[in-house]
């Protein structure tokens, strides 16, 4: 099931936005979501629509409720009020792997990979999960280097620039490369939605730029991306739409330029506009 799309560089956020506008469909629809923990209201009345094919950023200072929102978005947490609909269907209370099978891939704050396995094996796992679903009994199927799943893995690794290190143990990668590996794992799943959880957290300026380049490069038509971030530079280089979260509520939601100039946003970020 190797993707036929060649490594195509996206012309830029504007064109992608244009395409999404044509399709006009909302992939992720969040209506009136609230969530409290032990008396503390983490999220209040969140309304959010993520357009199919767009790159949507959710930003906010630490403690704004981004993690909680993320977990509600993908159905890990059940909101106290409101609903979350993904691709037309509700997404709440499912087991993580079932949520993922619906077409979501997640990149974690700290790159989550399979350390002692080779890069190729790392990505092959995702390819196999895509092909077989949640479970398949395949003890007869030997995974030699020429196996279709291994080839798919090699292809994805090539796309993220790790194509010449297929055999290397993943734990030996630098942090930046681990992030790329994780990206390749997600790509192999051909997700409808790619969720990036502070992908540039703790990265140097250099690495952050490389990550931004990578994200732009790997845009597949139709693949929606939600980026949770608090690095402004990342957000304004990538996103077509920005939602700003502060103390559990949305204080701004719109195009990057609109949000940038919003005084409420500046106030919330007082003293911490960008790294």
């Amino acid at each position, binding site marked *: 099931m190797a993707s036929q799309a060649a490594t195509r560089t996206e012309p830029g956020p504007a064109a992608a936005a244009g395409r999404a506008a044509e399709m006009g469909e909302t992939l992720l629809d969040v209506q009136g979501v609230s969530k409290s923990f032990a008396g503390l209201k983490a999220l209040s009345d969140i309304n959010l629509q993520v357009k199919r094919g767009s790159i949507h950023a959710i930003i906010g200072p630490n403690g704004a409720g981004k993690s909680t929102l993320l977990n509600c978005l993908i159905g890990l947490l059940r909101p106290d009020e409101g609903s979350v609909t993904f691709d037309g269907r509700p997404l709440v209370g499912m*087991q*993580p*792997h079932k949520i*993922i*099978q619906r077409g979501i*891939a997640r990149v*974690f704050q700290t790159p*989550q*990979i*399979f*350390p*002692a*396995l*080779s890069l*190729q*094996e790392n990505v*092959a*796992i*995702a390819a*196999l*999960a*895509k092909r*077989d*679903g*949640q*479970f*398949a*009994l*395949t*003890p*007869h*199927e*030997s*995974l*030699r*280097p*020429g196996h279709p*799943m291994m080839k798919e893995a*090699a292809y994805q690794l090539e796309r993220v620039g790790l*194509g*010449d*290190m*297929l*055999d*290397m*143990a993943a*734990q*030996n*990668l*630098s*942090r*930046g490369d681990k992030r790329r590996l994780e990206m390749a*794992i997600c790509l192999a*799943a051909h997700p409808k939605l790619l969720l990036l959880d502070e992908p540039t957290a*703790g*990265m*140097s300026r*250099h*690495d952050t730029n*490389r990550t931004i380049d990578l994200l732009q490069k790997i845009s597949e038509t139709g693949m929606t991306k939600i980026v949770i971030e608090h690095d402004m530079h990342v957000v304004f280089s990538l996103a077509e739409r920005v939602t700003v979260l502060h103390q559990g509520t949305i204080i701004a939601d719109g195009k990057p330029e609109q949000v940038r100039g919003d005084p409420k946003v500046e106030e919330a970020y007082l003293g911490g506009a960008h790294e």
Partner: protein
Amino acid sequence: MTAQAEQPAGAAAGGQRRRLPAPSLREAGIIALFALIVFTLPWWLTAIGGYEALATKIAIWAIFALGFDILLGFTGYLSFGHAAFFGVAAYTTGLMFKHVSGDVVLALLVSIVVIAVLAAVLGVLTLRRAGIYFAILTLAFAQMFHAAALSIFQEWTGGDNGLTMSTKPALFGLPMQGLNVFYVVAVLLVIGFVAARQIKRSSLGLMLRAIKENSMRLQYTGVNVWRYKMIAYMISAMYAGVAGSLMVVYEPYVATKFLHWSTSGEVVIMSVIGGVNTLIGPMIGAGFMLYFENVVQAFIGEKWKLILGLIFVLIVVFLPGGFVDGFNRIRRALGIRTKPRRPNVPDAPETMSRYHDSKNTPAQTGSDN
């Protein structure tokens, strides 16, 4: 299935990789070598102070340990309750021999089915959560079977005295005595080894190994991790069951000790001493431990268990990869190239130096690039 020797694209291990023969040929060679060693075990074991019956026992425990490695080595789940499968299969076989017939094949098949069911039930109870729970729960439920065998099921198991029978087991009419038993066990061991190696190189094996590496990542890749854990658990249980069953073929007597935690402990110890996640390691551990118990004990007496316990602790502390890892380290120190594969031990920093010449900067600098 392609049979060519494809060099994995961009092998970063340096250009001097030797040309390997076709994978399936290599595999056949390894199996053949293994079979040779196993089938000649009674002879070379005797040469180093052992005896024929010991060879059979070693082979039986090798099967047990092999299956155990599929669970511990691949998925990283440490079961302290595999005695339950070993013992229940032994009792099932014993009861089959005693009350039905001495047919080995029938007894084996029935035992395997019973064990599969048992493993399914126990798996549901113990596998839902992380490894720590699992270790404790497997220990507990195995102890339950032990207690039950001594009390509730005393009538069938013979309680403290064990289960005795006068039936002479036979395989397709061939009486199971002397070397006959050994060959039956040896054949099953080789089959078990082939199967285990196949699982390891299969896509199923990859998923199992992924569980150990990062089960959360696996979950977030859409995989139903629990089902794979169940499969690994059931497979390892069935290996244990075959071993327990063969034990009764070897010696028509079932002791409650088969269900005791010490039996579970023994397979853990031999697997770790030999080296988990190597398939060969646990089998070597089985041989080592049984040799120690039966041969070395003659020299040092009762203290053999203490010595073995100390060896176990020392290995866990200093050489977690077991004998196999120790062997590989010696080979590396002598300059002999070992397989350029990733380490099976969590903290083995040697591999980093192998990849320094790639354009990747070393990971230990802590910087992002």
